């Protein structure tokens, strides 16, 4: 007897081999998609949005590419998700994690065809991942004690991260900037405190890090353009009519004169407020909300610089930099902490006027001004710099570093290979496959650079047979070289996250033996 359908009309079910095939293919397709962006000679992708305006993004950043894809395959969604998490958690390695997961699945597919049960593969992968991590831990370099060396480590990491991006031409310059900015954070990972201002025009080389703070705002007309030894009040308060907040209050009058009177009272109230603010003895007032014309005029009269409508992050940063508190009431001028800075002036970058606060008390926040030929260049530069900043801020907390250029993968592959030889049972096939997947990363790097990957990887493997070898692929010269000499470093935290989340994702996809897709939700308007 035919079974009545169990699912709803549009729902579908895929089982066993078919399900596994569908998820393998989906995941590998995604991995292959971003594969060509890996490494210093990786290519970029153009993304065109389907939304209004068909805006175009040119990028090399794995997470950005994957985020913008419309994917229907559930397994592919898992890969997109790990890339996103990698971006949030460590900021870099977003491509590597997807490529590694894809390679792991590719190897797994071969094993499944060779009649090895997915659970056995998973068990082998787990052992291999553990072993690979231990191998990395054995070889980490930690220069936390030696501040000077640590800084140079950071420089190298920043340069390695940046060299695959659009900023590779000026990587020293940007690496310097990123390291400076991160050192200012003093160990905090809150990258909000680093403001990136993008101004088209000039070249990338003209970008700079500003010690002080730059606010993308104009100074009100008739107010001083330059203030020395500024006392700043940072506020978040309504500077319009200042409504009565008690619920249900309304103005009800019976004659025109009364209207005038109340209007006068309102004005008086505003004036009172401005006076109270002025009583703090300030010469600069920054408000998050709008400042209407009337109070602005009052401030101008008093010779106080009033800046309106700074965004919330701007305010928070300003509070951080100048050491002032964000105020909303002004009745006790003596106890409100004011911010201080040596000089406020209006500066020009390109065609725009900006307000520059220099000589600030607490240098926790800073601004990076990016210059470049077009918006696309600037956007990509911002993403690249953001990657570098993320990696650096994480490295400041976890100071362990590794060599780059495919070196960690080769080290791991070697150890994993040895484990495979020692392990009895079917698991050893899976462990061996894991090491092959690891080697796929240097292979891809070499391929993307147009080098003979087979030759290079074979050479690399031979070199790594010696204990304590530092060999990796030097893409610039196109040969195997000593990574320590070339100064190619990577953060341990990034590599570890790549390894673990790629294994986790591959394991998750491998465990699936059935895909059930629900009927897509009907939109109301289709009724």
């Amino acid at each position, binding site marked *: 007897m035919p079974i009545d359908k*169990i699912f709803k009309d549009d729902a579908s079910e895929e089982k066993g081999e078919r399900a596994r095939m569908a998820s393998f293919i989906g995941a590998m397709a995604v991995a292959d998609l971003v594969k060509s962006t890996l490494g210093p000679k990786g290519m970029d992708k153009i993304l065109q949005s389907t939304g209004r305006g068909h805006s175009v993004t040119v990028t090399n950043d794995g997470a950005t590419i994957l985020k913008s894809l419309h994917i229907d395959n559930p397994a592919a969604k898992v890969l997109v*998700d790990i890339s996103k998490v990698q971006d949030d958690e460590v900021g870099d390695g977003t491509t590597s994690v997807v490529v590694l997961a894809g390679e792991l699945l590719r190897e797994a597919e071969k094993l499944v065809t060779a009649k090895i049960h997915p659970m056995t593969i998973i068990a082998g992968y787990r052992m291999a991942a553990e072993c690979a991590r231990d191998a990395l831990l054995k070889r980490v370099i930690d220069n936390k004690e030696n501040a000077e060396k640590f800084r140079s480590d950071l420089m190298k990491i920043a340069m390695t991260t940046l060299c695959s991006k659009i900023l590779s031409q000026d990587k020293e310059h940007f690496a310097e900037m990123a390291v400076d900015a991160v050192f200012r954070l003093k160990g905090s*990972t809150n990258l909000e405190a680093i403001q990136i201002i993008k101004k088209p025009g000039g070249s990338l080389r003209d970008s700079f890090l500003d010690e002080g703070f730059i606010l993308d705002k104009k100074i009100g007309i008739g107010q001083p353009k330059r203030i020395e030894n500024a006392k700043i009040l940072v506020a978040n308060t309504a500077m319009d009519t200042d409504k009565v907040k008690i619920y249900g*209050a309304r103005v009800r009058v019976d004659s025109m004169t009364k209207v005038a009177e109340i209007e006068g009272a309102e004005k008086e109230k505003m004036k009172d407020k401005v006076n109270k603010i002025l009583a703090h003895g300030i010469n600069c007032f920054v408000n998050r909300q709008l400042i209407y014309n009337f109070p602005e005029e009052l401030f101008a009269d008093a010779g106080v610089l009033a800046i309106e409508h700074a965004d919330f992050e701007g305010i928070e940063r300003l509070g951080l930099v100048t050491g002032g508190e964000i105020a909303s009431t002004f009745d006790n001028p003596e106890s409100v902490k004011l911010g201080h800075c040596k000089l406020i002036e209006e500066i020009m970058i390109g065609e725009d006027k900006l307000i520059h606060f220099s000589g600030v008390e607490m240098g926790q926040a800073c601004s990076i001004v990016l210059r470049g030929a077009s918006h696309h260049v600037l956007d990509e530069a911002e993403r690249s710099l953001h990657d570098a900043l993320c990696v650096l801020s994480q490295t400041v907390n976890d100071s362990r570093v590794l060599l780059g250029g495919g070196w960690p993968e080769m080290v791991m592959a070697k150890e994993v290979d040895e484990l495979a030889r020692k392990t009895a049972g079917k698991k050893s096939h899976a462990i061996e496959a894991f090491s092959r997947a690891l080697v796929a990363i240097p292979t891809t790097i070499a391929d993307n650079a147009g080098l003979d990957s087979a030759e290079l990887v074979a050479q690399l493997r031979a070199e790594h047979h010696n204990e304590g070898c530092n060999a990796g692929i030097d893409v610039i010269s196109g040969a195997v070289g000593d990574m320590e000499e070339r100064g190619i470093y990577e953060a341990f935290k990034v590599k570890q996250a790549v390894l673990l989340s790629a294994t986790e994702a591959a394991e998750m996809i491998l465990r699936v033996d059935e895909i059930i897709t629900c009927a897509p939700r009907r939109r109301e308007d289709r009724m």
Partner: protein
Amino acid sequence: ADLLGFSHSNHFRSETHSSFFLAVREKKKTRSELGSDRGKFEARKMALAFDEFGRPFIILREQDQKTRLRGIDAQKANIAAGKAVARILRSSLGPKGMDKMLQGPDGDVTITNDGATILEQMDVDNQIAKLMVELSRSQDYEIGDGTTGVVVMAGALLEQAERQLDRGIHPIRVAEGYEMASRVAVEHLERISQKFEFDVNNFEPLVQTCMTTLSSKIVNRCKRSLAEIAVKAVLAVADLERRDVNLDLIKIEGKVGGNLEDTELIYGILVDKDMSHPQMPKQIEDAHIAILTCPFEPPKPKTKHKVDIDTVEKFETLRKQEQQYFDEMVQKCKDVGATLVICQWGFDDEANHLLMHRNLPAVRWVGGVELELIAIATGGRIVPRFQELTPEKLGKAGMVREKSFGTTKERMLYIEHCANSKAVTIFIRGGNKMMIDETKRSIHDALCVARNLIRNKSIVYGGGAAEIACSLAVDAAADKYPGVEQYAIRAFAEALDSVPMALAENSGLQPIETLSAVKSQQLKENIPFYGIDCNDVGTNDMREQNVFETLIGKQQQILLATQVVKMILKIDDVISNSEY
């Protein structure tokens, strides 16, 4: 006359049906060109026409795909549907069970091994399949674990029932036979169960049982640490004297990022919020917490009112009052000695600054459930009005701190060392969102198992050992029953074998060979501890492998599965409502 009356009442039904149909049609606006009166007329004519076709019982619309199933056909169809659901879950059973990937209606992906979750999200349409979903859900509510097993069990029972029906045994007799057999099985379980002793200091047996539950999930990589976390959490909130655990006191919170190994148990509350003002202190020691459900905003009386401003003086007084109001609110909190304010609602900017100014850190927009948990943990009272704040109503916590994660600006608030340590939080970290969700479900299962053990200390051995033992007992009992039920009871015994069989199958063992070997071993040595060696450890003795399951969980599984199967067997007529 009787027949006439029947058809008359049916006629009435058809009319209500047709008017409903009309309403739907109107909503679809396919007939918008027709006047509504005319539409009604047409529809009625159609319903009448159906009567003329000589089908007075069910009104079927245009398509005849939906038919009415009766008698043995109905039972067969229902059994087939139930089996189909069980077949989906069968491969998820046991430590080597596979996962299912479910794509929801909005394109969201869930990967899980938990029977209840799979069925819940499967978007089932068939009525009998829905019964199976219900079955798994009730096992989830009652016991929390074994949701896959119960469905597999029910599927096996249905399969066996089908064979009995083919033999010509009446479904009711089969159902009754099952009922007797289930009683035998449950009693036998009671007999072979073992009690084990544990207390707060020696919770190793609890950990072992939780590990059995976790070993079938994706988190089995660190099942040991997760099992320990679950057991410690349950013990922290358990009322050992009353033998009861309120699982609501255990909050499970997850955040993407980090490793599974970073999952931790926090003796306190974790709130996914940050301080209302960025410059408030991030760490408060020895906090006195005011828990408020009133906003730091001017009052909004429920009754409608108007405050009329018609003179300048009134305007001025109102202004003063407003300022005073904010001031009083903050002062009130300060006066009772609060060092932290947790509020369910938002703050006005001015109030926010005043709080910050008076050095009174505050958290806003805290959800109702979390607020309650905080109140329980800190021993405070939830205060609905500022006037009612008193020092006694404040909650106390040794340490409150804000912690940030990753490269984004995500922060969470830890409230630790609370006055009343009865509320705990399990904080899960993991590589991606699906992992976190699956871990949450797995931890929930483990918590339920630990709770069940505290309620009832009896355990049975897992790995199919209990099922095999029951199967033997039921088989032996079958011969004692005279009558047709005997066959049904034997069928029940057969069905019990299907769980260990599925376990063996999923573990890549030869199912029939393994099962018969274990069964004969149990019978020969008369020891009910032999089960399927899923993990390839090398021994069949589940005592050695430390694979335990709770007695009530197993009993519940058998009882629930039998009940549902009985219900399905008793259906002899399926009238499917054609979709309007």
